[in-house]
């Protein structure tokens, strides 16, 4: 009890306020052509103990009570699972296969280089092996939304650079999600062999066997004649796949993602997309992004070591991605000019980075979840997702200035 309000009542109230604030700020950000996710995170900062404590000291104590923390954390965790499930459900494996040669080489370059640079930067700054792996994984996956929108506004989206960028984005997400396993599962170098074995086990069971038997599963679900039985069976599959992925590679989200990939094959599950989206986008997923924002301890921004980490991550995030993608695109046959343009388009990071840092914190990969390292990583991630998103539109404009000049002449 706090005053005359018990904690469970407070959770309901908190979730209600969080959803309204998240969607409202999200729409404000969209109005300025920025990703709504940023608005949802900022809503979280406003609802975090660190911010609210400025006005009413004692909020932090309430928010850290297990009765308050666990339900909110659980909902946020379901949000991540649904986010990755939907992302799998919307990934057309055929489009990955159709990824053009340049798109493929540039994607691989743009994932591998930041990962390696991030890892070594982490080691160099004195972080543990696993924290450094997390740092690498954070930097891998591009969020294509801002780039697509900017390129479209400039009228260069239908050029070969724009097409290759879009084509690369699907595979890029895929590799970024795989990188999370490596970061979370590889606790030490000696465990890497064990991890590789477990990855094979996971892929065999969930992707290969899953692909084969999913139709039978859906047929069986169809025989259960009660209301929304298929939706329930679908969500059940997501949970069971997640549990198995948690057990094998310590990353439940991979199971959710694989469940999406496999279920996509069946028309029945596709027809349920509307229901799952409603549950995810309208409820659980915003809670996740608010939760991420709320965990930020604003005092961290006054520590030089945290700011230093943020600066290093930001630098590698930008240079690593641009260089990695550009080299990959050059190898794939693009001119340097176009390669750089592709590189610049791949700078923004968002969802996957946030998911990765969150899972790393909760999974203990960064030590004590409310400890110094975890807080620094969280703050640094916030800084780099925000900055990479904000600087990309002007940088794209700069990279395409020749094309835009010629357009102006016409």
């Amino acid at each position, binding site marked *: 009890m706090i005053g005359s309000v018990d904690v469970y009542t407070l959770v309901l109230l908190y979730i209600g306020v969080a959803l309204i604030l998240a969607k409202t700020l*999200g729409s404000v950000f*969209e109005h300025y*052509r920025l*990703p*709504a*996710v940023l608005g949802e995170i900022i809503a979280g900062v406003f609802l975090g103990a660190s911010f609210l404590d400025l006005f009413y000291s004692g909020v932090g104590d309430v928010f850290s009570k297990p009765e308050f923390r666990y339900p909110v954390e659980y909902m946020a965790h379901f949000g991540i699972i649904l*986010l990755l499930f*939907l*992302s799998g459900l*919307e990934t*057309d494996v055929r*489009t990955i296969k159709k990824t053009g040669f340049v798109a493929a080489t540039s994607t691989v370059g743009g994932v591998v280089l930041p990962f390696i640079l991030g890892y070594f930067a982490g080691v160099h700054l004195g972080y543990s092996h696993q924290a450094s792996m997390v740092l690498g994984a954070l930097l891998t996956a591009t*969020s*294509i*939304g*801002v780039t*697509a*929108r900017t390129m*479209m506004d400039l009228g260069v*989206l*239908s050029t070969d650079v724009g*097409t290759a960028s*879009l084509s690369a*984005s*699907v595979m890029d*997400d895929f590799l970024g999600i795989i990188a999370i396993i490596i970061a979370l599962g590889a606790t030490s170098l000696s465990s890497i062999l064990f991890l590789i074995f477990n990855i094979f086990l996971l892929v065999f069971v969930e992707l290969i066997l899953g692909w084969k038997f999913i139709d039978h599963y859906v047929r069986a679900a169809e025989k259960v004649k009660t209301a929304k039985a*298929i939706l329930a069976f679908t969500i059940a599959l997501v949970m069971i796949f997640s549990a198995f992925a948690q057990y094998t590679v310590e990353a439940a989200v991979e199971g959710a993602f694989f469940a999406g990939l496999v279920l996509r*094959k*069946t*028309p*029945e599950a*596709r*027809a349920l997309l509307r229901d799952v989206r409603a549950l995810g*986008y309208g409820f659980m*997923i915003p809670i996740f992004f608010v939760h991420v924002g709320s965990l930020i301890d604003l005092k961290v921004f006054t520590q030089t070591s945290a700011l230093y980490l943020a600066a290093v991550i930001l630098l590698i995030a930008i240079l690593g991605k641009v260089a990695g993608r550009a080299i990959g695109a050059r190898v794939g046959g693009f001119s340097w000019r176009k390669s750089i343009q592709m590189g610049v388009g791949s700078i923004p990071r*968002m*969802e*996957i980075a946030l998911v990765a840092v969150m899972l790393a914190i909760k999974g203990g990969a960064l030590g004590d979840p409310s400890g110094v390292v975890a807080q620094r990583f969280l703050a640094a991630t916030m800084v780099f997702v925000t900055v990479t998103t904000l600087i990309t539109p002007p940088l794209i404009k700069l990279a395409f200035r020749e094309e835009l000049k010629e357009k102006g002449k016409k």
Partner: protein
Amino acid sequence: MNRLKEAIQKLYKTKVSELMDRLGWDIPVIPEDDTIIHAIFMLRSNNHIWVVTNKKDMKVVGVVERVDALRALLPPETLSYAYSSTHLIAKNVFMRADARVGDIMTTPVITASEDMTLKDVMVKMHRYAIERLPVVDREGKLKGEITLKSILIALTRGYKESS
């Protein structure tokens, strides 16, 4: 009321093969690599078009309805990119000038087979809120279609005959 019930009971037992519209000039089909504008021309007089791999194999891979075209034609600034939705970007003609029918279709589709009963078809239609199913053989080859409209017409015919 009993007359209606009897007519419905009879309808339940009917096989898809007895009522389906067989593949012919009047069933709209388009290959997945065809252009979006061609699909739009066809949608002027059709509610839907079955999308097939190619006209030789005729394997059904998806369906394009008028709402699918609508989504492709929306002003791109109204699309929400809340959570990295690459799929939405790929489905809009402003975002992808080279988009083909296969990019904007709804895929995969829920299908029916010739030996299904209309009862099962009706349950399926209701469960997934769809009015028409492509009828396919074991290999997924398009054989024709079964629509709610033809089911309702058959019902009224059966009702009249029973008087």
